């Protein structure tokens, strides 16, 4: 009995294990090895062991700087927009409208992010929002190809990923706790800070991490709305691998990005654990 169970479990996990081994661990190992190698004169990769590629990382400082500012700022902006929306959906909306509104949150996902980002080119381009601003006296405002355009694009693109985890956390919130807080003398804003916010923290952290990690690897939105002026590490990687064919340096940049993300995830896990200490049922959110 136990034998069959173990074997059955192993069998079921095999596809996933093979998938991760072949498509994640193996390429990661390749990238790590490449990052210590050298570039041949015609591009590509020559075996070797040198830290030269890592020493060269500051050459891509701008990409790292953009990523490490716009990813957190984008995450924060998404959080500030998503929290009230999620709160409204989870706490205030009647059951009748809830499903419809939740579907509306996902609807943008039905269209490719590529197409939706192109739409922003028109909205932020000369004949879009700037034209509108010009008509009320704010001449010569350029929005496209700026960090602002990229920020708008990433917040727009990733908002649902922030809304849903927070929604789930708030949905579970027992509204009687808020009545209890009011009964004990807490005005509404204080019961929000003392009860609602701490109890929805797991959702906030999940959503933030989800969005942050994806933003760190983002390249599509900066490519479209940044117009080559605002580029992320992702854009640098595309450039290094496909245009300049500098695979070892590209690998070093990729490894650096992965390391930064690992550090972030480690911090995230610790924060979650600290909050999870307060509640047993949120530990695995």
């Amino acid at each position, binding site marked *: 009995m136990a034998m069959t169970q173990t074997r059955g479990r192993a069998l079921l996990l095999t596809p996933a294990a093979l998938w991760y081994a072949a498509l994640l661990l193996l390429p990661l190992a390749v990238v790590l090895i490449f990052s210590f190698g050298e570039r041949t004169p015609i591009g590509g990769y020559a075996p070797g062991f040198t830290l030269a590629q890592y020493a060269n990382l500051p050459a891509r400082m701008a990409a790292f700087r953009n990523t490490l500012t716009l990813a957190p700022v984008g995450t924060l902006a998404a959080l500030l927009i998503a929290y009230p929306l999620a709160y409204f959906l989870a706490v205030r909306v009647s059951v009748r409208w809830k499903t419809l509104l939740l579907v509306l949150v996902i609807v943008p996902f039905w269209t490719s992010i590529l197409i939706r980002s192109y739409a922003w080119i028109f909205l932020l381009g000369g004949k879009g929002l700037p034209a509108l601003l010009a008509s009320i006296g704010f001449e010569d405002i350029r929005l496209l190809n700026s960090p602002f355009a990229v920020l708008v694009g990433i917040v727009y693109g990733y908002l649902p990923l922030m809304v849903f985890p927070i929604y789930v956390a708030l949905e579970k919130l*027992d509204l*009687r706790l808020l009545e209890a*807080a*009011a*009964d*004990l*003398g807490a005005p509404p804003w204080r019961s929000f800070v003392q*009860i609602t916010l*701490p109890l929805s923290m797991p959702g906030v952290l999940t959503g933030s991490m989800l969005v942050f990690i994806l933003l760190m690897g983002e390249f599509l939105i900066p490519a479209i709305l940044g117009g080559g002026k605002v580029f992320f590490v992702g854009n640098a990687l595309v450039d290094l691998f496909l245009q300049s064919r500098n695979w070892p340096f590209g690998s070093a940049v990729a490894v650096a990005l992965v390391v930064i993300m690992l550090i972030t995830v480690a911090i995230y896990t610790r924060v979650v654990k600290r909050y999870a200490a307060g509640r047993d049922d949120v530990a695995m959110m």
Partner: protein
Amino acid sequence: MMIQNPSMADAASTDVAPTEVVAEFAGATKRFGAVLAADRINLRIRRGEFLSFLGPSGCGKTTALRMLAGFEAPTEGAVLIDGKDVSAVPAHKRPVNMVFQHYALFPHMTVAQNVGYGLRQRRPRLPGAEIAQKVDAALAKVRLADFGARRIWELSGGQQQRVALARAIINEPQILLLDEPMAALDAKLRGEMQRELLELQRSLNVTFVLVTHDQEEALSMSDRICIMGKGRIAQVGSPQELYDRPRNRYVADFVGRANIVAAKIIARQGGIAQAVLGNGATIGVNDLPGDTRGKAEIAIRPEALTLARGKDAVPEDTVALPARVTHRTFLGDRTEYLLMAEGIGPLQVNSPRQAASAIGEHDVGAHVRVLWRAGTGLVLAADI
């Protein structure tokens, strides 16, 4: 037993002198859309009493409590606390505290943090040392002295309830509201908690307002009970008054068991009505003050009736109703008989053990006589 003299009335329990009033419902009405959850509730709550709202679910008892707590504002009428109209005062500014049905303890806080929550909301702030000391005292009062550092989910249901109690009483409220606090406890624990709650109420001298659907709980704990149905107050009175003098069928049915039989009233004098039962027998019953109807329902408690064999002599002032035993349930201290009385219908008679050992048990199918002594029945008002 129904009391002999109804004209004593329940004045003592319904009229509360203005100086004694801690809270008052003044025509308080609450509508949720088309639903009338509370219908013109008029009630004065006496300072220091233990009052229960009793009724089935949907009767309006919880709405009444929530209007007192400040979670619902009356659609019409007013709610007063300490003589002031608080209808528009939000919950966090009212001098009342509540023990919630499922306790509503904060899961991300320790027991001590939960209990101290109300004190931490005070402005200007109380010193931390004072809060800590009051928390310890409150926990000691509910016999959870060493539980301050525990997490909520580490506690049993009974312990959680004590935490909820401590969290409410620590604020020294004018009124402690209890929303079915015992509903989630098993029977044994419930009995213990009821006793503890009563002791607590006596030692604190705080007004307790309890909402319950459990009539035994209400009868055993309350100074007064407010029986509710269909959003209205059916009757307010002490447990004894409600049992002995139910005003209408709803109350008679809800508190204890009652036989309710139709009768014609042919004469009324001195608080006694002469009722002609379905089989033609005439019996004097306690009249409903001010009633003038020619037909009414009469209530008689199963333990007020006795059984006799066909040949036994009938005592004075008693009518004997021929009946047949249809069910017999032996319950140790008493035997419950269900009978079919000729011309009247089903009746229940509870015979205490001594009576049974003296005259013997009656078998199902046996023809017996139900003895109804004058003055033990009661004319009921038309329903609420």
